[in-house]
């Protein structure tokens, strides 16, 4: 790992200005899990790490806390660890998807350091990107090496020109829960819908998010829960421990008068961004919950899939994961 200076500045503005001045050689550090991983691999070699954990005062409190907001929603600070979020009992069950996503990411020890903001903004896990000797599209090369390479873990939806899958396990949950994110930039704080945080590779294949250099993710803002809101998160992994999911699904809905309403469906680890499935939502909105309609919705969600040579298995896998999530969200018994 290259030598560097740890810089601890007490205000968000000072930290932001420090990075904005020279973003090529300075970077923010929160939990530092993905950052340290990339630095050990030689993918990144910043001269200065600006520690977000040093931010004090009002901004620091907001970034480190979980709190109910005046409008009836909840705000989760970007520096809250995945372990803290997963174990936060006061968060109403209506938001269960994000707690479950946090509690199933990585390992217990990693979750005690990894932060909510870092999970949303980490770089992709594609092995061509992570290999320091390879120059892929994400690193300024001219092609996505997964297209003709071993692409068993790559995108089946929304791929091209890069075929990474978005690495965040919170991603599908924040999209399904209709969350917003608050970002600190040059002109102060601004709040945008969470799905606008994620950038498809058609916009810029070298980046996965829309933050400008020097901008800081401050919090994830959950809207007030709808009356009777339920949510669920489900995933499939190759093994039970330390592993990135092969497919994930997050669902938010209400069930009123025997029909499903207010539905939002998002899939994770199948596309370069957390993938909202309008196709599934269209099938389910206004339908009575049943195993049959869930299977139909899952089929619709993956009907637009375009698998690569080695990852067609992810299509039925993602369908199954989504069906589970729909059963859990609506408390519909699983088929025998």
């Amino acid at each position, binding site marked *: 790992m290259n030598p560097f200076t740890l810089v601890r500045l007490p205000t968000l503005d000072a930290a932001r200005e420090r990075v904005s001045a020279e973003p090529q050689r300075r970077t923010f550090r929160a939990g530092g899990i993905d950052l340290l991983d990339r630095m050990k691999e030689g993918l990144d070699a910043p001269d200065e790490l600006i520690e977000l954990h040093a931010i004090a005062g009002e901004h620091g409190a907001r970034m*480190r806390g979980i709190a109910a907001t005046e409008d009836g929603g909840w705000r989760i600070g970007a520096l809250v660890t995945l372990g803290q979020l997963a*174990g936060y009992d006061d968060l109403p069950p209506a938001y269960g998807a994000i707690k479950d996503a946090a509690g199933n990411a990585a390992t217990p020890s990693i979750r005690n350091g990894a932060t909510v903001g870092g999970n949303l903004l980490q770089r992709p896990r594609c092995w061509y990107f992570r290999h320091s000797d390879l120059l892929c599209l994400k690193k300024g090369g001219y092609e996505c090496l997964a297209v003709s390479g071993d692409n068993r873990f790559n995108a089946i939806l929304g791929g091209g020109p890069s075929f990474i899958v978005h690495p965040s396990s919170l991603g599908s949950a924040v999209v399904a829960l209709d969350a917003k994110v608050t970002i600190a930039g040059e002109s102060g704080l601004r709040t945008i819908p969470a799905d606008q945080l994620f950038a498809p590779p058609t916009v810029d294949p070298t980046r996965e998010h829309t933050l400008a250099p020097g901008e800081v993710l401050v919090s994830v803002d959950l809207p007030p829960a709808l009356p009777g809101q339920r949510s669920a998160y489900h995933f499939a992994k190759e093994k039970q*421990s*330390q592993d990135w999911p092969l497919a994930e699904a997050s669902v938010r809905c209400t069930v009123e008068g025997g029909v499903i309403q207010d539905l939002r469906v998002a899939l994770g680890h199948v596309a370069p961004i957390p993938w909202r499935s309008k196709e599934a939502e269209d099938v389910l909105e206004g339908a009575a919950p049943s195993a049959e309609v869930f299977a139909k919705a899952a089929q619709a969600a993956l009907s637009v899939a375009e698998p690569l040579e080695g990852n067609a298995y992810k299509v039925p896998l993602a369908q199954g994961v989504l069906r589970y999530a729909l059963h859990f969200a609506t408390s519909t018994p699983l088929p025998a």
Partner: protein
Amino acid sequence: MADRSALTRRGLFRGIGSATVVASCTRTHPGTATNTPSTDAALSPGEIGPSPSRLSFELNGKAVQVDVEPRTTLLDALRVDLDTTGTKKVCDRGACSACTVLVDGVQRNSCMMLAHDVEGRTVTTVEGLADDGHLTVLQRKFVEHDALQCGFCTSGMLMSCSALLQRTAGRGSALSKEEVQDAIKGNLCRCGTYPHVIAAVLDASKERA
């Protein structure tokens, strides 16, 4: 520093290190894990490095000071600079949890932390579990249940399971198998001793209950 009469590879490296153990304090047991969001825990302002800088923290009940570069991981500081080699380096990427330690009672991968992250904090390694040579209940149960083969994952397993026992200490009932499985989900054992580890932890939790 511990005496070691024979010249060993480790002893040689230790000799040229820059670690100092400051006057030993009374031995403290690892604190209760406080892993709830804390809104008033900002790091002190300042700049550290890139050259070696003084770091002070409490290691296994003793105040220690060491000069390390910011890029030194906590794992390397523990093993190379402070000679606490019970903490093992395996993947060095947070994937195996062999390097698990407790920081203020919370289990962490020391390979994915910088040494300077623990300034002013309390670190417990596997060396800090036994009290004056007396093994903890958990350690005794590991021996009784033969919960290790090659032993390389063992210190990490012990730390993850100690953290589990500590955070459920007030409960007064035995742990479930699922709870133990969840606690060691990050700890890889290539020998496959998981069933014996789980049996040892369950037994330790019964003794406590």
